[in-house]
């Protein structure tokens, strides 16, 4: 149980190469959606096609060569067509960094599964209960006892 996904992978290619594979519509369809309809650019809402698994409209949040690319979507690549900004979404972020040997580390995060108010971190609830992470820690313990 958690509110975010964090994954990392090291790729033996330059940061520029990896950024292109993520941000270029002709490249991204070779590893992620099968098709893209519409404009794959910041502030636009293109549609990712996943063949028989349906279509998922996304909102491109930011694209900063060659370090950052982010979009919002209905999580899981589930079927969704409509105004992405009018529904609950998660934020998917790719962060690229160059390692000493010239390879590229890709850090992927998907956040916002439980749309927690941002202020919770500073709130008194946080101090009282230790907040989200504390709770999840306790839940993990509970599950481990099953």
């Amino acid at each position, binding site marked *: 149980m958690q509110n975010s996904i964090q994954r990392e992978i090291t*790729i033996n*290619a330059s940061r520029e190469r990896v950024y292109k594979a993520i941000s270029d519509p002709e490249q991204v369809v070779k590893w992620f959606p099968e098709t893209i309809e519409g404009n794959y650019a910041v502030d636009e809402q293109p549609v990712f096609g996943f063949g028989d698994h349906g279509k998922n409209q996304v909102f491109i949040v930011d694209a900063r060569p060659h370090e950052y690319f982010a979009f919002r979507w209905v999580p*899981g690549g589930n079927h969704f067509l409509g105004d992405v900004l009018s529904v609950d979404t998660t934020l998917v972020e790719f962060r690229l960094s160059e390692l000493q040997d010239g390879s590229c580390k*890709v850090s992927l995060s998907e956040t916002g599964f*439980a*749309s927690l108010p941002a202020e919770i971190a500073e709130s008194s609830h946080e101090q009282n209960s230790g907040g989200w992470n504390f709770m999840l820690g306790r839940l993990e313990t509970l599950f481990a006892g099953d």
Partner: protein
Amino acid sequence: MSVEAIFKALGDPVRLEIITRLSDGSSYTIGKLSEDLGVSRQGARKQIQTLASADIIQLHPAGRETRVSLNTESLQQARLFISQLEQQWDQRLLALKQLSED
């Protein structure tokens, strides 16, 4: 109950505090659970109802009282959903690696 509904129900500080209290596995009466939440009793009751509707907690009548306990199955379902998404991302990132290294 959909995972989306479960996550939605988790997205509130008062509801999270309620789950935190229940997460040691014990059950509380509604009255006891509503204490010191920083909201009125009515407000607390409403949040408890929301959690019950999302199947995150269970209400058991016990005499004149109602006892509340955590439904770990729902939370496990949410956790399973997350771990499936993690596997999906791992597969996608592997495909990104293969493409980039070609």
